[in-house]
């Protein structure tokens, strides 16, 4: 898994590529939680993400809980179909603001 952070004046973005499983979820969690402190608008781009397990989903849940008391926003964007399917099966599609494309690309 590789993570690229983009920090702008009005938003932050995390581009995540590769495989997000129980080996890599800790690094993703650190990167995401650090970034959430910076801006009101936060985007996770999964365009290059090839695989996600419940360990990756759990990180998003932790982030959503952290944001719920702050009024900040987390958007998940550009998921490939097989990643979106995991979101659908797990019920996560209903929990997050999901966009088919990256709004800042």
């Amino acid at each position, binding site marked *: 898994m590789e993570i690229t952070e983009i920090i702008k004046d009005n938003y932050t973005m995390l581009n995540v590529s590769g495989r997000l499983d129980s080996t890599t979820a800790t690094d993703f969690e650190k990167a995401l939680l650090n970034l959430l402190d910076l801006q009101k608008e936060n985007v996770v781009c999964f365009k290059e993400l090839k695989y996600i*397990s419940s360990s990756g989903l759990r990180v998003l849940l*932790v982030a959503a809980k952290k944001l719920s008391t702050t009024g900040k926003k987390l958007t998940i964007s550009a998921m490939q179909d097989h990643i979106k*399917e*995991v979101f659908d099966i*797990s019920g996560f599609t209903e929990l997050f603001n999901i966009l088919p494309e990256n709004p800042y690309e």
Partner: protein
Amino acid sequence: MLNILKNELTLESSTDHLSEVRNFVEVNGIKVGLNKQTIAHISLAVDEACTNIIKHAYSNDLTKKIKIKIKTSENKFTVIITDSGKHFDPNKVPEPNIEKIQKMKKGGGLGMFLMKKLMDEVHYNPKANGNELILIKNYN
């Protein structure tokens, strides 16, 4: 260290080996002509089962071993996962619904929930010194 036979894989109890586990499922799935989506479902279910063993049955003890065996028949792809850890029945993990997931602090039970959604059958057999988990996917 991995020990791969044709349809059997023994691995050390570490999440570092999960990509090899998924690869092992993929190779066997391709061999019997499963489509990409079905292979992805089985790979994820086996990943979740192994992650659960590593974290819960073995409490991250790297010296322990997990054995994965794949059996295929005309329309069933069966994965048998055995470990020598603490007894853990995935069927006793309560299924989270959306409301529960929202309330959960860490999303506990999510892996088991996904595993059961992705497979057609999940059977658990407690053994004298460990666990046996049987995951079955039907295909045409």
